[in-house]
Every structure is written in C-alpha cells, then in structure tokens.
C-alpha cells in the first residue's frame, strides 16, 4: 500500500490512495470487550432457578395426584375438598399480599370461578367417554408431550399472566389424562386441580416473588418437596430422579452458569451495526 502523507479515512465516497479493504493500525484500538455484562452472584441465580424447579415439581404433583386418583388411593371428594381449601387459602394469601387487584373485582373473580366450575362439571361426563376408543399408550404419550410443551413454553421470566400456549398445552394434557379416569367426578376433580396448579398457582407465586421475596424460596422448596414426596409413593425411582433433577436445576446449573461467566468474551467495535443509545420511552408516552 502506498504510504503517503495522506491519512486514511474510513469513507468509501472519497477518493483515497488506498484499496477499499485497507485497514490501518488504529483499527483494533477501538476494540471493546464484554461491554455491559452483569456479574452474576451464585445465590441470586439459584433463587431464580428455583422457579424452574418448582414448575417441574408442579407437573410431578399433578401426575402423582392423577395416578393416586386412577388407582383409587384417593377418593375424588377428598381431592375436591382439598382443592377448595387450597383455593381459598391461596385466594386469601393473594388478597393479603395486596399490591393492586389489576382491575379485577371480587365479583369478576367469582364469575370466573363459576364459569370454571360449571363448564368443567358440565363437560366431565363427555370427557369420560372422549378417549374411550383411543389406545391408552396414545393418550399417555400425548399427555406427556403436552406437559413437556407446558414446561418448555412456560414464561419463567414472568409467570403471571400464564402464557397461552403453555397453559393450553397443560390443560390439553390434563384433559387427556382426566378422560382416562374411572368416573365423571374424578375427571372434574382432576381438571379443578389442573386449573389450580397450572393457572392459579403461577399467579400466586409471582405475587409472592414481588411482594415477599423472602418467602418465595420457601414456597418453591415446599412445592418441590411435595413433588418429590408425591412421586415417591408412586414410583420411588422416579422420585429419586426428580430429586436429582431438581438439585441439578437449582444448584448445579447456576454454578455452571456463574463459572462459565468468567470465560465470556464478547467483542464490540466500530464494525458493529449502529445501536440507538438514547432512551426513547419518553417519546412513546
């Protein structure tokens, strides 16, 4: 390259004695590494990972409930009463935590509850015969797939309001499972619990995380314990597996994340595409 007195400018429109792909020594001077990377602390990551763990154990609790109902170990009436108690307790807690009702009155809540109950109760005889002709394996496979989809698409960053796809997948799976139960009341109880676990519990958990950050890990741990405990009566090996999974999810994975954070090497420079730095939110209001 001709080393003239002319300094290279990074423009293509001007005529310069350099080829277009010429770079001079100043090029790497503007290189920046790891701009704006937050330093993660292990325990806060583990706390957040507890949400994933408790959602997995929610599914485990549901499966445990279903299998004990299917096997006749648990009468549906008891489950219903338990559900009612849990719902009332949860609703009370939700109210006690406060923080705005989000525009919903008690009357609207009552209406929603009435709709849930009426529809579920009305359709539970239909549900009983729904999958009669479909083979059991197919139903199990479908439910497993749907519950997995629920876990995959669950909005972990913000569980309330529940994401449409994850909630719908969980409900679809629970309807499939409920249709395998021996009676209409069983199906009704199962669907009520599905609603409690997959729709209402994430709302309460979100409220807990916002309002009572200290109580949140305990609640998550409680649910995880319930999941492990519920599964141990049904399938001990499975409960051990779940326990290991939970431990890996809440303790090992955050550790891995924090460790790997050290090796993070992002480079930034003038070659990046333009980024709008200014805060535009004041224009949007």
């Amino acid at each position, binding site marked *: 390259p001709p080393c003239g007195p002319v300094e290279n400018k990074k423009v293509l429109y001007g005529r310069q004695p350099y080829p277009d792909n010429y770079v001079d020594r100043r090029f790497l001077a503007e290189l920046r590494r790891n701009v704006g990377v937050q330093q993660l602390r292990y325990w806060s990551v583990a706390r957040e990972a507890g949400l994933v763990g408790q959602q997995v154990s929610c599914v485990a609790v549901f499966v445990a409930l279903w299998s004990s109902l299917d096997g006749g170990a648990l009468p549906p009436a008891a489950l219903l009463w338990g559900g009612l108690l849990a719902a009332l307790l949860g609703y009370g807690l939700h109210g006690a935590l406060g923080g705005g009702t989000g525009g919903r009155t008690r009357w609207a809540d009552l209406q929603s509850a009435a709709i849930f109950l009426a*529809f579920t109760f009305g359709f539970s005889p*239909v549900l009983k015969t729904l999958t009669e*002709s479909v083979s059991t394996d197919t139903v199990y496979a479908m439910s497993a797939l749907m519950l997995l989809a629920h876990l995959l698409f669950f909005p972990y960053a913000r569980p309330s309001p*529940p994401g449409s796809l994850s909630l*719908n997948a969980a*409900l679809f799976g629970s*309807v499939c499972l409920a249709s395998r139960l021996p009676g209409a009341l069983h199906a009704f109880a199962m669907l009520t619990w599905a609603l409690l676990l997959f729709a209402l519990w994430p709302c309460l958990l979100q409220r807990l995380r916002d309002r009572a950050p200290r109580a949140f890990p305990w609640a998550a741990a409680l649910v995880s314990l319930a999941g492990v405990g519920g599964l141990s009566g049904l399938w001990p090996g499975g409960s051990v597996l779940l326990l290991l999974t939970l431990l890996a999810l809440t303790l090992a994975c955050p550790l891995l994340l924090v460790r790997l954070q050290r090796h993070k090497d992002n480079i930034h420079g003038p070659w990046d595409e333009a980024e709008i730095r200014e805060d535009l939110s004041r224009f949007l209001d």
Partner: protein
Amino acid sequence: MVLKIFFPQCCTTADSGLLVGCWIPDQDSAVVLAVVHYPFIPGQVKRYLTEIRSQTDVDLTVLGSWSMPKEGQEGMDSFLKDLSTIFPHSRWLQLSREIGKRGFTCQVVRKGGMFLKEQAKEGEGSVRDENEKVIIVHYDQRKVMLSQLHPVQEGVSHSKMEQSALRAVFHTVAQSHPLFFIDKYDDGPLKLTHWQSEGREASIIAELVKQGSVPVCKLLTWMLSLWSWLGSIRLLNVPPVRFISSKLSTCVQLGYRTEHLQTVSSTRKATEHMEFMRKANIFVSFLLDMALGLLLIAWLYRENRIGKLASTLVPVADHVAKELRELLEWLMGAPAGLKMNRALDQVLGRFFIYHIHLWISYIHLMSPFIEMILWYVGLSACLGLTFALSVLSDMVALLTFHIYCFYVYGARLYCLKIYGLSSLWRLFRGKKWNVLRQRVDSCSYDMDQLFIGTLLFTILLFLLPTTALYYLVFTLLRLVVVLFQGLIHLAVDLLNSFPLFAMGLRVCRPYRLAEGVKFRVLCEEEGTPLHLMMEINPIKVSAVLQYYRTPTYSCYPRDSWMALCKKLFVGELIYPWKHKTTKTD
C-alpha cells in the same frame, strides 16, 4: 408497389373482351369479376355497369382488356388497346394469353398512354421501375363468394375493421352477387363470362315452405308470447316457487327451449351471418332433439315397458335403502378397524336410520301411483329428448333426497367442527384472526377464555374422526349422485348447444366457413408474371365449436378441481348446478 390482380378461374378460357371488376383502394389490387365479350357497344356496357352499381355497393368499373388469341382474330390486340380511350380509368390492364402457354402476360397502362411492360428485356432489368411488378392470383369465384372468413367481423364499425386485402376481396366478390345472375343463355345485349350458377331452383316445395313458414312463425311467436306471459303473471314469481323452478332442470330446460324457439320463430330475416348460423343451429338441434324424443317414446310406450319400469323402481329403492342401512350399521360398529367415539357414533347412526325409515315409508305410500306418474312424465319426451333427460335428472334428484339430506347433515356438522377447530387452534397458540387486517395477530386472552377454549378444542379434536368418517361416506354417496346428474346435464347441454348445422356445413361444404386462404404456385414460365392459385383454408373443427356454440349455462366459467377439493375439505355444500349468484354481470 406490386400490383395484385385477383382473376377468376372460370375466365381463363373466356373469349376476348373487357375485364369488369373493381379496384380495392389502398391495397393496390384489382379484383376481376367478369369478362364482357366482344362484340359490345360501349354505351351499353356503361349503362349496364351503372345499373349493377346501383344494386350493389361495389364500385364496378372496366379494368382493362382481355385478349384470347384465336384463329381469324388477328389484329384484335391493337383494337383492345384502343378501347382504353373509351373508358375512363387511371390504370388500364391488358391481359393477354398466347397460344401454347399456360400463363398470360399483363401490361399496365397509366393514364397518359405510357406503357409499362411487365416482361421487360433483360438488358433493361436494372432500370425497371418498381411499379410494374404484377402478381396474378387465380381464385374460384363460387367458393370465394359463398365462403365466410373467420373471425366474423359484422358488428364491428368500419374504422375498427382491420385493413386486410383478402377480407376486401372476399367482401367484394360476395357483394357482387347480382352480377352473377345473368347467365350465358340470356339474350341480353352483353355476353359475359363469370361463375355460372345452375339457375335458381324453382321447386314448388321449397317455395311452399318459404311461403308457409311465415304464418307458422307468426303463430309460434304468438303462442310463445302467451306462454311467457303465463309464466310471468301467475304466482310463479313467489320466492319459493321461483327458487325451486330455478333448481329443477326441467324448468331450466323449458326456459332455454322457449328462448331458442323465440329466436328461431322471429319473422325478421337474418341478414348477418352469425345470426343466420345461430338460427340454423338452433333449428337443426331442435329437430334432432324432437326426433330422438319421438324415437324414445316409440320405444318406451311399447310392450308395457312403463309398467315394467315402475314395478322395478320400488324394489330398487328398497334395495338402496337396505344397502344404506347396512352401511350405517357398519359405520356404527368399528368401520375399517377405525376406533370412533362410540356415543356420538350411536347417536348419528340412529338418527340416519330413522331417516331411511321415513324415506322408505314415503316411497311405499307413493308406490300405487308411480306407474301413472311415469306414464304422464314419459309423455314429456315428445317435447324432445332433452326434456326426457331433464325429467330423469329431476326424478333422480327427488328419489335420492335422503342421500342429499344425509350429506347436508354430515357436511354441516363437519363444517362446524372444522371452523371451530381452526379458530380454537388459533386460541390454543394465543393468536386470533384480525378481521380488519385479514391476518392472524397475537392476543392475550383471559384465563377463563383459555380454559373453556382448550376444553372445547380437546373435545372437538377427539370427536372429529367420527364426524369426518360420516361426512366422507355420505359425500362419496352424494358424489355418485352428482356425477350421474352431471352426466345427464352434460348430455342435455350437448344437445342444446352443439352447432350441428355449422358442423354439417364444415363437413359437407368445407369452403363455406373459411379460416383463411392458402396459395399454391401455379406455373413458372419465363416471361409471364407470377401466377398463384388461391384456395380456401377451411376452419378447424374445434374453432367451429368455439364460434358457433349456442350459449348455455355450461359456457359460464366453472369451478376448478382444486376449488372443488377445497370445498369438499372444509365441508361446503356442492351442487350439480351453478349458483346464479356467482355469475357476474
């Protein structure tokens, strides 16, 4: 420019005389129509030409002279050349034959007496003027006069008409029809050579038919107007009656036939070619239809065939019902090893079996009257085979009404499911259909909406195979019926719209309908201009169909197969007839 002379084939052996014809403006071509023989008196020729000119639109003039060498007529040439001074002209053609040569030569004389010889000496070839080139095109006068060039340009205004020399030649020859009425046996003052007709037919029968057709047509018109008045004034225009009559193929056929007869029986003379062909086509198909209908009647009302038919009809209906019932029972079990929702299956099956029961009792109630009904209905064949076929189609439609009902129930149920599932599937994914923007948008639903939607989605999804199977079976049944009816409609439509007259004309007189012309090089002799033979290129058979097809409902654009499949898939109802609403303008 090259001068083109269209020369009739029959005049190549004519005696010497004057060429009568006309110049085609802008195209630099001359059409020779006849040769006036020597001897003649020029004044008489002029008078005769003005007379003919007043009868036709053709600008008839004397084009030049024609000399046919004969023994004892030497010196004729110079005389014919002198004739150019008698008749007014801008160009004077001198065609002359020589003994022993097939071609003939042509000389063009411009006003002012300057000779422009066609066959110039070789040495002068380089300085030869452009003006003197001549092509002589021979044509068959009779065929060109009678033929009709396609595409027909009758209604088109003169300015829009394409500038075509051939069209002008055809037009000129066809227009100068009165010229050809004089034949060689006439004792007039002039002797002409041109195409000789064999004289006009003076058949008594043809004349009687011609005379008699006028009052018959008037009577027909009067009766038809009475008929249409009846149709318009009675309570036929009440919505339900109107709807039913628009769906019954007999009524539709009646409407078409009335319209056709009105066209045929109008006493106005068909002056234009297309109108004439339309009338003739309709008339011939009407006659054929009637003949076939009478044949059918002759076959049907012999040896008590009606009675036999009626006595087989009820057992056939019974048999069909039995088969249907077996089909339904098979569907209510585990058809083809498919596992269906048993509760829904039973409900649907019982519902349909009850329907069949109703239908069979209706048929049995009707059975004593069936023979009589058939007897009277069979009489409709004397109106034509198309009527008999239409009645048959309607009867099939009425007798398979139960299949239609099954189909409609199945389709409605299936359609409901498909629509419900498609919208609930969007809800399942957290999306919704934005009507304003015609697209799928994401949307946040309430929890109770999500819950109920998913519940319904699951239920509909698991019940779908049962409904789909019922829908499939009844759609197949319906398709068989529709196919049968469609075949009948196709036959009726063929009889109604097939241009029989035009097709016959194409087969027997191919030159009458011309697509264009073709040329053949006649002879290449040294020293004569180029001689071409112009022959008529007959129109293709497919083009005959395209031009002369009587318009009926089958001419409207129909659904494509893909559209039909889509309709079947989403469960829209299909019909053998075309919806009137889909027909735009």
